[in-house]
């Protein structure tokens, strides 16, 4: 009797142990699966954090739309594949560390999106962003970098990628002081270099006479565009130094900053000329300030 009950008890024990083991194993499996699943849901790579604002929202739609608008209305003679241009642009910075972008990264895009620049049409600029673009938009004869396809598509936008991720980083992008070789700056340097190399004939430049140094060799104009003008193609550079419309008129063409530019340009065998407050550009300033003395028009009719 005792033996029977002990045997019975042993069987129960074993059943219990077996059941417990099964439950434990199942539990372990569940926990293991949960961990794996949770891990899978997290992004595989960590998004790097930067101090600047993230890539522009809807970057692809904006750039594609601009590309199609450009080839359709701004420059209908240009035949380009906008979808391919977008892909090539994206490949330049996607999956890369945004502190390690090089001009080579953008070379395929440069070749794909390059356009012929007519002689005497190039307008370079430094520290006159708003005025120079109002001017070209209205006057329509000269072209700034931002009036070419590459500049038109990217103007005012921000973008960067993330290493080991194929996504555009919309959270943050590096500012200039965080790393100089960021996707935006390198883009503008590469495109500006190509733009300067393509210039021929007369090159116009709009500089700002109301700041300390109208010409600085740290600007893109001074560090990238001037050195890459081709003296075999460009024979004359015409500078317009514009001043704030309400400010003191001054003769910036004889300032040391402009004299420095003059010696650089003449040293490269390009003729140099300078004009303060070029009339046509000043008219644009007057549109916003018609009351200014410099904007008074001589009335010839009653």
């Amino acid at each position, binding site marked *: 009797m005792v033996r029977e009950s002990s045997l019975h008890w042993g069987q129960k024990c074993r059943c219990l142990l077996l059941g417990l083991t099964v439950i434990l194993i199942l539990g372990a499996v569940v926990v293991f699966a949960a961990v794996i699943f949770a891990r899978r849901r997290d992004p595989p790579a960590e998004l790097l954090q930067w101090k600047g604002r993230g890539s522009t929202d809807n970057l692809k739609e904006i750039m594609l739309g601009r590309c199609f608008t450009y080839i359709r209305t701004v420059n209908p003679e240009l035949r380009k594949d906008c979808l391919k241009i977008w892909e090539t642009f994206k490949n330049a910075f996607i999956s890369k560390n945004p502190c390690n972008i090089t001009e080579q990264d953008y070379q395929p895009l440069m070749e794909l999106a390059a356009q012929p620049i007519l002689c005497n049409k190039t307008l370079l600029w430094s520290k006159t962003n708003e005025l120079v673009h109002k001017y070209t938009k209205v006057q329509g004869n000269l072209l700034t970098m931002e009036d070419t396809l590459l500049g038109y598509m990217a103007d005012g936008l921000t973008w960067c990628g993330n290493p080991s991720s194929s996504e555009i980083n919309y959270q943050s992008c590096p500012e200039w002081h965080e790393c100089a070789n960021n996707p935006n700056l390198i883009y503008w340097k590469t495109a500006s270099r190509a733009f300067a190399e393509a210039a021929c004939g007369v090159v116009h430049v709009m500089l700002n006479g109301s700041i300390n140094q109208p010409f600085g060799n740290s600007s893109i104009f001074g560090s990238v565009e001037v050195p890459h003008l081709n003296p075999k193609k460009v024979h004359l550079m015409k500078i317009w130094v514009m001043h704030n419309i309400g400010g003191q008129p001054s003769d910036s063409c004889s300032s040391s900053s402009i004299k420095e530019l003059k010696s650089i340009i003449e040293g490269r065998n390009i003729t140099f000329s300078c004009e303060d407050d070029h009339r046509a550009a000043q008219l644009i300033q007057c549109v916003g300030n018609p009351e200014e003395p410099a904007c008074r*028009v001589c009335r010839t009719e009653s």
Partner: protein
Amino acid sequence: MESSNLVLQGLMLFLLLFLMGQANVYTRAGKKRWSGEGTSPHLESIFLGRCNEYISVVNPELSEKNCSAIWEAFESVLHKDPCSVLPSDYDLFINLSRHSIPRDKSLFWENNYYLVIAYADNARRLMPITDVLYGRVGDVINWCRQENGSDFDYHSCPTVEDCENNAVDSFWKRASSQYAHDSSGVIHVMLNGSEPSGAYPVEGFFAGYEIPNFQKDKVTQFEIWVMHEIGGPYLPVKLLKCLDYPAHADCIFNSAAESTQQRFPSLFGGKWDPSLMFFLFLTLASEIQL
């Protein structure tokens, strides 16, 4: 004999096929159905690009707008015949894309598109209809549905000469009505005084769809600028025209001369044709019961 027969038959067959091929080509690409140009290529991309750019860059307060939904509402005109599109067919599109227009910033116009665009400066100075979201997406592009199909017609589209209820005209009628309805404060109107048929087109959009929709309790004043070719009275706009003719007598600056021009021409000032102004004032007064 037989072989030459065969050769002859072969040649005739070839000629027949060739002619048929030519006829086919002619009927396909020859005569256009409508008198206007076809739907703009890459319409959807241009539309979405403009919409996204507007809400992300130009007017970021509108970042909650859904450009895909706006495109779908716009595209719904594909459900109707190319000559049966009514302004009300764009009601959903307008509802999704409308937004407030800053007070005193509205600019209406007739016959001077490029000058208006230059002066308005991308919504920074004034906000004409093309600087409002629903106007921006439709600007300078063209669209219509195929007569016997449900896709866009890229060959030709009807204009008013073909039929009144076409996709593009109905769009602008609807958009213009909304723009006038949402405008408040000082209303600016730029007319072309050098237009041979008259500065104020009696059958134009301004007359037909904008004047009737102004809200009398929101509008405080009308400022009419009648611009002439280079001799125009309103200085800032005239200055823009001077860009093309900087050596013209009207464009020579003289800081010593006193400006005798009024900066904001009033309704009854200046040297415009008085009957024109009287007519315009009467129309405005009667329409909105000032």
